[in-house]
Structure formats: structure tokens, C-alpha cells
């Protein structure tokens, strides 16, 4: 991975210190929760939809390490405007990238730094936690 200090400075801390999407949006159409058994981290994800069903705003409440908070915030940023199927595909691409260690072309560049976590299997779960919460939220939400 690029030096983890660089990863922390440029990606993780930039988004975990003052997360832009923290908290629930004004209306919550669906939500999901995920917890890590390993460290007790917990993430809630809240979805607010446009009338056409696409994701209008995604909010999160993440309690845990800086990686899980940054991952939640960047996930929220990435997914707004997507349909549920697009969000699922984005999620799949993110998971693939965390295993392969190769930045995924289908993902926006601001997520690419997470590819380095492939070298940190114990921390992969932290970055995936919000995406797990998302999967629950999408599972309960209306399909587009």
C-alpha cells in the first residue's frame, strides 16, 4: 500500500474528522445497521430517496475507527444519485477492490486509496462495515 500515514492523512482523516454526511437525512426511507464483532464498531446508514426511487441523500452514524467513519462518508458521497442496482454494483466493485488491491475503474478516484487495505486484512472489515449496513438498507428499501 502507499504508506499508511499518507492514506490516513489524505483519505481517512480528511473524511473522518469532519464527516460531511454524518447524521440522518430529513426523511429516512430505509436504514441499515452493521456491527463488527472484532472491535465493537457500529455503523448505521440512512437512505432518503427521490420520488423516482434513486438515492437522494445518504447519511450515516458511524461509531468506530477512523477508517470505518471515512469509508461511511465516502460511500455516502459516492452513492447519491444512484439507483439501488447501481449502488449494489458500486458496493460489489468496492469489495472486489479491497480483496484484489487494484483500484477499480468502476469506482470514483476518491475511493481508490482504499485498495491499499488489501494488505491489511484485519482492517478490511472496518472499511466494509458501512457497505454492509448499506446492503441491509437496500434489502429493505423499494427497488427502482
Amino acid at each position, binding site marked *: 500500500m502507499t504508506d499508511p*500515514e499518507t492514506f490516513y*492523512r489524505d483519505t*481517512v*482523516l480528511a473524511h473522518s474528522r469532519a464527516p460531511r454526511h454524518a447524521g440522518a437525512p430529513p426523511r429516512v426511507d430505509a436504514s441499515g445497521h452493521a456491527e463488527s464483532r472484532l472491535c*465493537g*464498531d457500529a455503523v448505521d446508514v440512512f437512505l432518503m430517496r427521490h420520488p423516482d426511487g434513486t438515492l437522494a441523500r445518504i447519511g450515516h452514524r458511524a*461509531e*468506530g*475507527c477512523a*477508517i470505518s467513519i471515512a469509508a461511511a462518508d465516502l460511500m455516502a458521497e459516492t452513492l447519491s444519485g444512484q439507483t439501488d442496482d447501481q449502488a449494489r454494483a458500486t458496493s460489489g466493485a468496492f469489495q472486489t477492490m479491497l480483496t484484489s488491491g487494484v483500484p477499480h475503474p468502476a469506482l470514483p478516484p476518491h475511493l481508490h486509496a482504499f485498495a491499499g487495505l488489501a494488505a491489511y486484512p484485519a482492517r478490511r472489515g472496518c472499511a466494509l462495515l458501512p457497505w454492509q449496513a448499506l446492503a441491509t438498507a437496500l434489502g429493505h428499501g423499494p427497488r427502482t
Partner: protein
Amino acid sequence: MNQIRPTSPDLARYRADFPILGQTVHGKPLVYLDSAASAQKPEAVIAAMVHTMRAQYANVHRGLHALSEAATEAYEQTRDVVARFLNAPDRAEIVFTRNSTEAINLVAHSYGALLKPGQAVLISEMEHHANIVPWQMLRDRAGIALRVCPITDAGELDLDALEAQLADGRVGLVALTHMSNVLGTITPARRIADLAHRYGARVLFDGSQAVVHQTVDVQAIDADFYVFTGHKLYGPTGIGVLWGRHALLDAMPPFLGGGDMIDTVTLARATWARVPHKFEAGTPPIIEAAGLTAAIFYLQAIGQDAIAAHEAALTDHALTRLAEIPGLDVIGRARHRGGVVSFTLAGVHAHDIATLLDRQGIAVRAGHHCAEPLMHRLGLGSTARASFALYTTHQEIDALVAGLHRVRALFA
């Protein structure tokens, strides 16, 4: 700490006995501060295990040939070595298991079978999951109550509460850690045993951490059961020890059934071998036993008191240096403690600390340390933990402190 401790004897020369410690990690010299999770192995242990496999390996207790006899003798010698290590009165009181966890499960199963519904087992808030879950399983299986002794904010056992919980005479067994793997607290074993016995209870100590850092004498502390695990004692994985009083072991039904633990078997029934063999079903950890003997000899050659003094000096140094870091809180302030220091750093999650330290070659543990109820009691999700061993140096603690300053600066 204002207590005066003996100066650290120079154990630096023993560091070279641990081949793994010469490694670099991410291009940095390895600073291994995770010995409480598992200790590294000296050459003597590695060599003893290799020698067993190369020169005197066969199954034990069943061969009439030379190799089997040699292997049996070596395996049984480990029982003598462990008996002397714990000052057990009788070598037959030493039962080999896979680890501490299995030893505690054995007692929960077999001593638990002698407890009556309405009786209770008493544990504490600072137990490792290994000394919680087997008792919950016993509770759910056999209608045995489970009581929990609180700890003080300093991280010591609340002995008044312990006595209060014993007072009605229903506690059949007190099962407590002899040293906390999170707080470093060393519990007053003899006082606990006296209290337990006064109210008619037996006492088990989880010595997984304690045996590594101090001399343990099961007679002096008046224990009834004592367990430890080989891999934390510079020995191999796959071998643990249960010591129990002969009369208790004798009265207990077997744990696992199979070969080696029987006297006679017909298709209708079996009769049990005598202790300790009654509790050692199947082929035992033969190679690991050779490693455990070597580990104990190794510790004794250095001197357990010298090691304890060295670790006390390291712990003092760590507590002094860690106090220099703004926002750092050491968790647990027990007066009597061993070389395990847990801490939190304001604004930085323990996992982030561990990842960033790892990049500097420093290995610490982060998480709940298999003691979730304790974390809950302390109101913490996780902590970082540095733990010390005979091969740890003052410079390594200084490296940890420098590493933590760097983490803080990054998060500032």
C-alpha cells in the same frame, strides 16, 4: 509509581535466543509488544521440538518398542517438570490439555458435573472469555447459577463484594484470573482462596498470564485448580496444563472419551484410567510437551525472579513514559500488576493506533482482548495494549512512545 523497584538486571543477552526478534517489519526493526497474546519462542524450545521429531518420536503409552518408550519417558518427564514448576504435591495432578481454554472447559464439564442445581460458580468482571463462556454453558446446561464479582475503578477485585457473594455458602467454585490480560492486575490468590474455602467453595485460578510473570506455587496460594497455556510461556501452541488436587480430579468424571483414558473397554462399557490419564483422551501433544519442558527449563535457567524484576522495571518505565503523552489514559491502576499495559488515546481509535504503529514495526494488540464484559464495565469499546516479556527492552518502550507521538501528530 513511587514504589522502589529493583533495577532491571540485564537480560539483553537472552534476546538473541529468540530468532524471530531479529526480523524487520515494513523495513523497520521488529518491536514485539504483543507477548501477552502469545510469546515468541527461544531456540531451546524450537530445538527440543525438532529433536523430538528427528530422533525420539513415536506414540506414547502404547508401544513396546524403544522409540515409544523413549517418547513416553520424555512426555511423562514434562509432567514432572510442570509439577515442580507449580510446586504441585503430586505429578499425577498435572493434566495436559490443548490450552487454558480447554483446561477450564474440562473443569466446567467435569467438576461442574459434581455441582448441584442451586449451587453457583463465581467469576469476576475482568475475566478472559475463556473463563466466562464455559461457565455460562454450565449454567445453561445444569442449572448452576453464575455470579460475577465486581472490580474497582482501579481494576482490582472488590474483595468485600467477593466475600458478600460467598456468604450464603452456595458458591461451589470460584473461578478467577490470577492476572488480568487487559489491566495487568495481579489478584491476591491466597486471600481469595482463604475466602473461598471459608465459605465452602473451591477455587480455580486462570494463570494464563500469571505464570509468565511470576513464580507460582499452588500450595502456597492454596488453590484447588490452576490452569495455564504453553504458548504464552515461550512454549509451543497446542499444549496447556490443568493442575487439580488429586482428590478432586479423582472424583470428577472424564471430559473427553477415547483411547488412553480408559482402563478396560468392552462394547458395552468402559472403565476409566486413573488420573491424570482419565483426562487425556487420545494421542497427547507429544512434540509440544518436549517444547514445554524446554521452555520451563529455559525460564528457570534465567531465573523467574530476575525475569519478574526485569518486567517490573519495564512496566515502571512504560507507565512513566506513557504518562508524557497528552490524551493518553492507562486503563487499570492496580497496585500489584504485571507487564501488561492497556491504554486509550483521545480521538484515536485503538485499531488506528495499531495499524499506524505496525507501519513503524511496532506490534501491539488492539481491540477488546477477549474480555468484552470488562470493556463494557470500563465503558470502552476497545483499547490498545502493549505487553512485555523477558526479551523486551527499555528502548522498545521508548520506540512505542515515539510511535505514539507520531500517531498523535497525524491525528492532531
